[in-house]
């Protein structure tokens, strides 16, 4: 990746992180849009799987600091999702919005499942409800938002000379 590409990716990443901490609380949806995961996947497909895993771990730990009761759960989920996304980057490189949306959806759902199982705070019906109802809804919202953001940020993410 060229230095300019790195700078652009970092800008997009930071922009999405800011959105995560500003727009998401403002909306206050239960099925929330996970801008942080979109940002992670955006970077993960541009770096090696190991790097993506480390980035996911760091980002997850920082996010987990806001929920100390599940400290580490987000790091575990984001590490796995980022590694998998980077490993499957060939699919992401395809310029297909629907495919990108599917990976956002799958990534968010997988992250939610890992997070819920790792935090050990939900059981029984509540766990099933979170995994099979709210997590898919949140994944769908994230996928929708991810597609919109990819379209909006295409000039930023794709070098004009390419």
């Amino acid at each position, binding site marked *: 990746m060229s230095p300019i590409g790195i700078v652009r990716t970092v800008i997009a990443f930071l922009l999405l992180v800011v959105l995560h901490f*500003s*727009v998401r609380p403002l909306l206050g949806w239960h099925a929330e849009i996970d801008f942080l995961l979109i940002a992670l996947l955006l970077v993960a497909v541009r770096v090696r799987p190991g790097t993506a*895993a*480390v980035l996911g*771990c760091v980002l997850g730990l920082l996010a987990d600091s806001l929920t*100390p009761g599940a400290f580490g759960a987000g790091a575990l989920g984001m590490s796995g999702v980022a590694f998998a996304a980077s*490993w499957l980057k060939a699919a992401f490189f395809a310029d297909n919005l629907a495919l990108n949306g599917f990976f956002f959806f799958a990534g968010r759902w997988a992250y939610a499942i890992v997070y819920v199982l790792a935090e050990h705070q939900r059981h029984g019906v509540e766990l099933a409800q979170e995994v099979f109802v709210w997590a898919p809804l949140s994944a769908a919202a994230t996928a929708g938002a991810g597609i919109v953001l990819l379209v909006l940020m295409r000039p930023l993410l794709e070098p004009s000379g390419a």
Partner: protein
Amino acid sequence: MARAVASGTRADVALLAVSAFVAFAALALPAHLRDPLAATLRRTFIAPLVTLQRNAELGRTALVRHDAETTVRDSVALRALLVPELEAENDRLRRTLGLGHALGWGFVPAEALHSRALGEEFTVTLTRGSRSGVRPFAPVVAAEGLVGMVETVDPTMSLAIIWAHPDFRVSAMSADGSAFGIVKAHLGSVPERYLLELSGVQLSAALAPGTPIVSSGVGGVYPRGIPVGRIISELKTSEGWARTYLVQPAVQPYDISSVLVLEPRRVVAGVQTVWAGDSARHRGPLPGDSVLHRSGPFVLPRDTVPDVPDDSTDSDSTSASRSAAQP
């Protein structure tokens, strides 16, 4: 080349393993280590983001609260609109309660229901009937004074004419007993239709505006001392032998809601002390009642009736009705 790829893959897997190990270690941290670590991260690396999130949450809370507060404000405004009406109703009920306390016995409390039907403007339906002790020709009173008279009685309800009814008559006198006459509805045009007139007053009795008029008790239907109204002015009539006065009724039609129907034995016993003196005595122990701010009390002199001229052949509306009812 293949070795490099394999090496890179091993490195990636190793980094994943390290990341997973760190994550599991964070999960396994005891609370006394985990919480300070999380707090340190919050206060350093992501402090601006935490502030951003808090401000966003405050903004959302403000938006949600704005809707709720708007709803509350609208509700309060709506209730505020109803307050004067409720206060007036409350005041009327308190005064009726005070009247009942002053009467003590021999009355039937009832609700007066108005009808807007044509021809029923001057009658009210009372929610009590013969089973409760209501009898035909019984006086209907409110805290302010005379309302009218029961006309027909059913077991559970009854009909009463109010003072504005064309057939209404009551023998009346000035509160000081200096003048006597017959009070009836003033059958004028609409603005004056809801006034009374005191006719048949002897020429020697000149009544000043504001003079209280009460029932005189002549005729035996209405007991003596029920406030009827106050003199407004003298009317010019063709009758040269008597004076006629326009009277402001003591009870306004819109005030007629909760009334008391006097029983026959209460009529016989009289109500002279009920409206006499400070009107506050009619009330229960309710300080600050608005009745205290109303117009002055009717003060009845004792034994002012004996000089009443015997012109009571049509002194009360019930006299005619009674004679008609007794063939």
